[in-house]
């Protein structure tokens, strides 16, 4: 069920469209935010199609709300499928979270309680989405700031259960593991060791804001050293996995992001070497 390893990618951002087309940067693929292109026409779609002609693209959504107890939004799924038909992405992903109930959208990636009830609920919805889109989807672990007292298992046990039951792929956000580990006091290595390696199709790296007592996942800064170390640990354990760097705020010029991506290449290369010699 695995797709190919695409290598090292960047998030596709409006401010870089022209430069990408003009300079053909050394980026193996781009991740496009699905919702930005679920429009009728205009510049974003135009550029996405032109960039798609030269690079593999994956679609990453924030509004699937797979964990919500509201019914699945058929209109959203139709629009997502139409976009996927048009762009032919290497794969499609969204988050293991909910974004609102009672038809309201909080526009945030809200945490789930880790209960058997939530496993049943989320897994059955992933199955429905995969059937509708006629493709497996990748589900990403989110950063969280609270744990629910109802939880009966750890986050990694929850992810394992959901992935197995839904037979879906995973997008492992290494920064989110670090952030949630800090916020909830677990060892991020334990999280990574426990995941089903064969399902991890993509990795996210990002920066965050440390507020002292907790860390907020802001995607507005370079990847920190401890996250690079955790990434290295992950690649040692998993072998090469398609990796991309997310930056949603304070977006620097393309060259800065490309050099941060080179850093990821270097870390991954060393990690693969360490794993081979072990």
């Amino acid at each position, binding site marked *: 069920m695995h797709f190919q390893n695409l290598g090292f990618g960047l998030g596709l951002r409006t401010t870089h469209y022209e430069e990408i087309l003009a300079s053909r940067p050394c980026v193996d693929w781009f991740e496009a935010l699905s919702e930005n292109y679920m429009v009728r026409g205009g510049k974003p779609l135009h550029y996405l199609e032109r960039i798609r002609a030269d690079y593999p693209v994956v679609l990453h959504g924030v509004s699937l709300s797979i964990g919500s107890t509201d019914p699945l939004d058929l209109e959203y799924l139709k629009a997502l499928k139409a976009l996927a038909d048009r762009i032919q992405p290497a794969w499609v992903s969204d988050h293991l979270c909910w974004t609102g109930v009672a038809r309201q959208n909080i526009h945030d990636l809200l945490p789930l309680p880790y*209960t058997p009830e939530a496993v049943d*609920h989320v897994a059955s919805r992933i199955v429905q989405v995969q059937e509708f889109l006629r493709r497996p989807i990748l589900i990403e672990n989110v950063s969280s700031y609270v744990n629910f007292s109802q939880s009966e298992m750890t986050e990694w046990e929850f992810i394992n259960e959901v992935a197995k039951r839904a037979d879906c792929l995973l997008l492992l956000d290494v920064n989110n593991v670090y952030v949630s580990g800090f916020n909830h006091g677990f060892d991020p290595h334990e999280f990574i060791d426990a995941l089903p390696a064969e399902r991890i199709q993509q990795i996210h790296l990002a920066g965050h804001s440390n507020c002292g007592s907790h860390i907020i996942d802001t995607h507005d800064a370079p990847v920190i050293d401890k996250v690079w170390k955790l990434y290295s640990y992950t690649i040692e354990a998993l072998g090469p996995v398609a990796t991309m760097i997310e930056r949603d705020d304070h977006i620097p010029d393309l060259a800065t992001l490309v050099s941060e991506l080179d850093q990821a290449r270097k870390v991954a290369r060393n990690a693969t070497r360490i794993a081979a010699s072990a």
Partner: protein
Amino acid sequence: MTSLAELQARFQRHIVHDDQAVTSDISGPDDAYRQERLLIYYRAYRLRLIAALAVDYPVLKAFVDEQRFEELATAYIEARPSMVRNLRWFGDSMSSFLHYDPRFSDEPILAELAEFEWAQGLAFDASDAAQLGFDELASVPAEHWPQLHFVAHPSLQLVTLQWNVIAIWHAHRDNKTLPPATLQEPDGTIAVWRKDYKTYFRTLDRDEAWLWRTLAAGTAFSEACSRFATKMGMDEAGAAQRAAQLLHTWVEEGWIQGFEILSDD
């Protein structure tokens, strides 16, 4: 309701209405800790939506200043909770909100600024469509001109402004001090549209606005021309000449997607 549904409803009531009932669902050493963590979601909700509105309405934000924009955006978030999947459409009813809400309705320029900025966003990602070229227009045989109906480009939006919104917009673009709100006499019709993936706008002449609206409403070209003559008190030849000149401008600017030749019966 299932326990998951109930928990999600409580969590959302905390984020939206500051209802503390969900506190006991959160693990942690004490309530202070639980509330501190919940507050992260409560704040992030407002910050994210305010930031999205600031992207949609940069000139409105500059006009009212940072602090009042935050109040205005917060009031909007309370009044019109998001029901849209895509954050892109959240600010959709800002203009009508500012027009009707008593806290803002005594400053009618705010609703007009919002309407104008939103129209630019609509033009930006309207459907792609062809833009009629002169060759195509020239190829229409003379006998078909009476039945010619024009189809507007989907990006084209018309906005009627009574206030000096355009002057404020230009001052903002040029990093100049924004002028105070002033009423303009008479009001103006502004067209906003997209060509070659760029968004444009300009003020229409009064006769131009009348003729464009008449054609866009589905009136055949020759019929519109003769009504145009009556309306503007011109002779038929003068009206036809002016209409041809306007048509030339609109084709050049990409306002027209194409035409249909329909018999009017």
